[in-house]
């Protein structure tokens, strides 16, 4: 069915690696001292380089190689990770992505510029170290001990002994992963003369031997003055699969060898793990006393890494196949409903039991299938960190980005389609919402603004909101702009909510100047359209001086709808339950049309639509018609129906392309008896005439 295009596989893999690289770099920007992050970034780079070369992406490999070389200095602790470095590394990452996407169309000039910048940052630090005197503010934290230690031999914390006693025990399944232990032993030999003694105690009898499992370990005596890091580097890519014990030859007699099952004590490079502020000079001065402090620090880091790098086993599946599965399950649910209906008519107990069993199974199968499509929204939130990082830099507004509820799960298609609207909202929040530092100082706020992105479940819906702590919306200004644009007649009485709705009008912007980012007035209308397309709603709330919140309410999935099944004439329809507020009986006086179709719902005036007329239903209306009060945003209307049948949860089927001209219905669903019922597009019914209502305001003038 699927042909495996190696290049496509590489692209997907590289995509993930680049994403991982970006997150890591951003984390590194916040915690420049975290060596685990540097290692992760380095490994991602190395893998991209390797597979890039393998699949013929020569330029990717070449560029990544140079990038990696520069970054290696950071990894070795010769150059500290700084915010500048992270920024350059991020643009380098973008460049790699460009190179992968369009290998021929990318100008090498950019790459050279990035490498130049990177080289300058890295080189500077080295130069500063060697020259001893000169230093720049960006690299103030350059490790001056580098001046003392000869750079070539690596930043050894103390003079090493004559050699090392190395115990190597691999995990049993290491061969299956393609690791070649003998090649690693060869690498060790390259470091200096080695004596290798195999550990054979765990070796099983010949007939019990699994040729794919590694049952032996090795004890290596390496007689050469190499650093601990050099040895660990040999095992860099098998860290999770090997248990390594390292003991200097001189100390071997005194120190009992570590139990083989234990994780290696990874003594990090001399970069001080604790006390980042104490910085490099301290490292040199207190090197001997630091040694006991290191292992705990290293150990503390290990559990975290382990959980990070050993994700639960996953399978990559095409989204299309999941859609197909969902369709099949939908069919099954429908067939099952028919079976139950039929079984209900028979007195046969056996059939009833089976039918109930199948009902239970298919309900569970449906839930499982749904959950397969659910993805935590955190995967989406992660993408915005970079956006905020860049915007904050470009606009000169320091912004802190906080996310909450990353575990909230949403349908995958939903998450994909949410990305663009959220980008717009976050951009707006930073550009328009958050004031510049000077104004914030006047308002007695901290200089750093804050953007909070939250997701939470609210009933059968998910609420995603973007909140800033800026100045809030200025209703008067929006109103003035709306009047100027002719969207509303001066003097019309409007609620604040109504005024905020103007923000979603096409081409509407209150920004005095157009920036590269926003102010052109395109965006918010697209946001609204997209969210409505997802069957969601947008609410804006604002507190003057304290910030604005844009809240998006979305269904959990596009595949299933929780609805109210109604009957109008002979036809059955589904009203999305999320829009339904209440149901009332149609008052006697309103049964026949009397020219004014509105109800008094606890004092509020609610207009209603007769669905019989709208859907051209035949036959006599029911004597006791019901009104379903639905709402979209702040607008409420009633829908007059003949009968309310009940709750109905079902798979949504989209309408055919041939029915693109039918606006009243957003889709269809299949009922228990196998017939199709149309799903009413409430948004269309309620706000479909919004442009007209805006025009009404003008006509009043």
């Amino acid at each position, binding site marked *: 069915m699927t042909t495996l295009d190696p290049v496509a596989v590489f692209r997907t893999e590289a995509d993930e690696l680049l994403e991982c690289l970006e997150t890591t770099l951003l984390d590194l920007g916040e915690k420049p001292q975290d060596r685990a992050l540097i290692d992760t970034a380095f490994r991602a780079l190395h893998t991209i380089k390797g597979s890039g070369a393998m699949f013929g992406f020569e330029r990717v490999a070449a560029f990544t190689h140079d990038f990696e070389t520069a970054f290696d200095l950071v990894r070795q602790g010769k150059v500290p990770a700084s915010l500048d470095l992270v920024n350059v590394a991020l643009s380098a990452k973008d460049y790699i992505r460009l190179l992968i996407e369009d290998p021929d169309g990318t100008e090498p000039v950019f790459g050279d510029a990035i490498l130049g910048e990177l080289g300058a940052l890295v080189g500077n630090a080295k130069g500063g170290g060697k020259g001893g005197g000169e230093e720049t503010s960006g690299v103030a934290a350059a490790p001056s001990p580098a001046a003392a230690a000869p750079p070539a031999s690596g930043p050894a914390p103390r003079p090493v002994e004559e050699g090392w006693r190395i115990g190597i025990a691999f995990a049993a399944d290491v061969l299956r992963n393609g690791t070649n232990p003998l090649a690693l032993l060869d690498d060790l030999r390259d470091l200096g003369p080695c004596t290798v003694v195999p550990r054979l105690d765990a070796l099983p009898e010949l007939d019990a031997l699994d040729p794919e499992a590694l049952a032996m370990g090795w004890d290596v005596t390496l007689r050469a003055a190499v650093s601990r890091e050099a040895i660990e580097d040999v095992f860099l890519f098998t860290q999770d699969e090997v248990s390594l014990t390292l003991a200097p030859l001189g100390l071997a007699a005194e120190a009992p060898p570590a139990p083989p099952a234990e994780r290696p004590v990874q003594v990090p490079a001399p970069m001080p793990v604790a006390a980042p502020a104490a910085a490099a000079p301290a490292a040199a001065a207190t090197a001997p006393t630091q040694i006991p402090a290191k292992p705990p620090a290293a150990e503390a880091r290990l559990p975290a890494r382990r959980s990070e790098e050993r994700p639960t086993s996953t399978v990559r599946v095409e989204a299309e196949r999941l859609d197909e599965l969902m369709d099949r399950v939908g069919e099954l649910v429908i067939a099952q409903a028919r079976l139950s209906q039929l079984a209900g008519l028979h007195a046969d107990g056996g059939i009833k039991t089976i039918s109930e069993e199948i009902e239970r199974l298919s309900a569970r199968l449906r839930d499982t299938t749904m959950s397969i499509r659910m993805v935590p929204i955190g995967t989406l939130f992660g993408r915005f960190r970079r956006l905020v990082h860049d915007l904050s830099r470009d606009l000169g507004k320091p912004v802190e980005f906080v996310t909450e509820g990353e575990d909230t799960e949403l349908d995958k298609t939903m998450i994909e389609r949410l990305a663009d609207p959220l980008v717009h909202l976050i951009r707006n929040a930073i550009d328009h919402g958050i004031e510049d530092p000077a104004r914030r100082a006047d308002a007695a706020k901290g200089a750093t603004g804050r953007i909070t992105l939250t997701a939470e479940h609210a009933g059968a819906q998910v609420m995603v909101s973007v909140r800033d702590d800026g100045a809030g919306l200025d209703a008067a200004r929006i109103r003035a702009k709306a009047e100027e644009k002719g969207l509303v007649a001066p003097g019309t009485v409007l609620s604040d909510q109504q005024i905020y709705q103007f923000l979603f009008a096409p081409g509407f912007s209150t920004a005095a100047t157009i920036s590269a980012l926003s102010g052109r007035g395109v965006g918010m209308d697209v946001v609204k359209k997209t969210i409505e397309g997802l069957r969601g709603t947008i609410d804006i709330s604002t507190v003057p001086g304290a910030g604005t919140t844009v809240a998006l309410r979305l269904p959990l999935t596009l595949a299933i709808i929780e609805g109210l099944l109604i009957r109008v004439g002979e036809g059955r329809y589904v009203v999305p339950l999320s829009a339904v507020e209440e149901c009332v009986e149609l008052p006697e006086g309103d049964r026949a049309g009397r020219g004014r179709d509105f109800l008094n719902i606890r004092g509020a005036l609610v207009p209603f639509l007769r669905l019989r007329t*709208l859907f051209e239903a035949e036959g006599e209306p029911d004597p006791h018609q019901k009104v379903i009060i639905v709402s979209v945003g702040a607008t409420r209307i009633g829908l007059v129906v003949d009968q309310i049948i009940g709750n109905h949860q079902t798979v949504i*089927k989209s309408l055919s392309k041939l029915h693109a001209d039918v606006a009243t219905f957003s*889709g269809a669903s299949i009922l228990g008896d196998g017939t199709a019922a149309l799903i009413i597009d409430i948004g269309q019914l309620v706000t479909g005439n919004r442009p007209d209502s805006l025009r009404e305001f003008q006509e009043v003038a």
Partner: protein
Amino acid sequence: MTGAVEALEPVAGLQVVMVRIGSETFALDAGMVREIIDPIPATRVAGARTHLNRIVNVRGNVVPLADIRERFGMRPEAATQDTRFVVIEVEIEGDPVVVALVADKVFEVTELQAGTAQQMPKVGTAWRPEFIKSIVKFGDEFVILPDVERILN
């Protein structure tokens, strides 16, 4: 593709499904016919165009039920014992779309003979010429090779 001369060529050897719709016999390209099913209850779609104003559930998918009689100026008729839904797949603006077609009777799958295609006469019919690819002589009858994409859209 509207030129009759072009349309005449590929007719020879074409596998077709013969169906009667209203008073006419149509030859549907067998390649686009997915299945032929017994009539099933349909749901009316308010606001849709007359020839597409119903939907049916075909194997779990909601597809439009097309009654092309109206497009050929024929009167709607109630379903009979012979009525079938012919499920076809047509390309509409580049996307494959599945449609169920109401047929009053389905005859057979057959192969069209070379040299039997005739040009659509300019006079003597009220049909819109773009709905018809060509007219084919089959036995004693003239059958219509319809341009389903145009008829539907």
